[in-house]
């Protein structure tokens, strides 16, 4: 295999599922390129990635705030009304002396999901205004470290499991935050499926190499 220089390796991609090497080819707008060996989506092409990314990240952030500000579920049991919010669930672990579990849950369902959307919003805003070549790099590195540790989707399924366990003992009402959480999880899934790390790095490269050229001319 012959290459012009090391940067030419950017035209190649290794499938994250089966590790087959592929050469990047130009694809149509909104189309996706799949791995020939395992069918995994390698990358997509979206000429308005910055705008879409920014819009999705900010909507996610708003949904996250909603999901944390109101009751998730209200139940009526033996004439008493009880409700939970995400912060209250975490807090009650601490007040019951389950510090380690509380700590883990705080990161998995609160701090990391929030950080991901905050960083994404800032990142796309910076890319849009073509600023911060180094900080965007650091942000992308942090993102790829914390993404596997964000578990909002699993928490949502856990709420459903917990409620099924209570059916028959209590009257259950869904709160505003429950619907916001569903929206947040769907958006999160959509973003991880459509905005791959690879595409954002390539976007960053396009943004800043263009900048260089503009400066020189």
């Amino acid at each position, binding site marked *: 295999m012959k290459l012009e220089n090391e940067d030419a390796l950017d035209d190649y991609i290794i499938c994250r599922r089966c590790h087959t090497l592929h050469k990047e080819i130009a694809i149509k707008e909104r189309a996706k390129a799949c791995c020939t060996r395992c069918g995994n989506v390698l990358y997509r092409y979206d000429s308005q990635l910055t705008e879409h990314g920014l819009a999705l990240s900010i909507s996610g952030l708003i949904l996250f705030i909603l999901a944390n500000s109101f009751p998730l579920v209200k139940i009526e049991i033996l004439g008493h009304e009880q409700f939970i919010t995400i912060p209250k669930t975490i807090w009650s672990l601490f007040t019951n002396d389950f510090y380690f579990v509380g700590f883990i849950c705080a990161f998995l369902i609160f701090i990391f999901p929030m950080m991901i959307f905050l960083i994404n919003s800032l990142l796309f805003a910076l890319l849009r205004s073509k600023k911060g070549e180094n900080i965007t790099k650091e942000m992308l590195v942090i993102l790829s470290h914390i993404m596997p540790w964000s578990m909002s989707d699993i928490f949502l399924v856990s709420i459903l499991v917990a409620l099924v366990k209570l059916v028959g003992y209590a009257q259950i009402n869904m709160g505003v935050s429950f619907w916001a959480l569903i929206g947040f999880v769907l958006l999160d899934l959509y973003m991880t499926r459509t905005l791959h790390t690879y595409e954002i*790095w390539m976007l960053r490269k396009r943004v800043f190499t263009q900048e260089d050229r503009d400066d020189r001319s």
Partner: protein
Amino acid sequence: MIEVDEENLIRCHVCEAVNIDRGPNKKCRRCGSILYRGQKYTTHKSWAYLITAMIAYIPANLYPMLVTQQFGAATSSTILGGVVTLWEHGSYPIALVIFFASIVIPILKFLILIYLLVSVKYPLGRDKRVNKYKLYYLTEIIGPWSMIDVFVVAILAALIHLANIHIIAGTAATAFSLSVFFTLLAAHAFDERLIEGER
């Protein structure tokens, strides 16, 4: 012009950039993360995390996960006990979900990681037929789902605390989260680059 062998191309686990493998401790050309941790302790670190995870998994199954205090009397149930109770009450789907999340996934993940860690050091005869990258990818995808039971307990404990009825988390919740935490660390510490000759 430079000439590279395709076998010598590796993927950065942080930014996914394709890099030329130039030996141990080289940094990724794009994001600067360490690419190839070729030292001896690479598998040692992963083994240490994995063994901690497996040790924590024992009390996670022996101690109660959930304690219900009803009118002064406390009843507690372990993970497996909880699954059996759910099954007996006819909640088959939930029983299956908890069974898979708390028993099948952790054990499967231990076995896959043990297999991967052993096979990178001592290749077994039939190894060629198994795509180890896919196995590793599988552990990354299914691993986090084992947290379901811990979240369920946290939700129930936060939701049910009346004057006469309390639900509190049991010791197993801590042991189980420790186990999941260390399994995830073990998987992350495992260098994908150690799986060779599979392309």
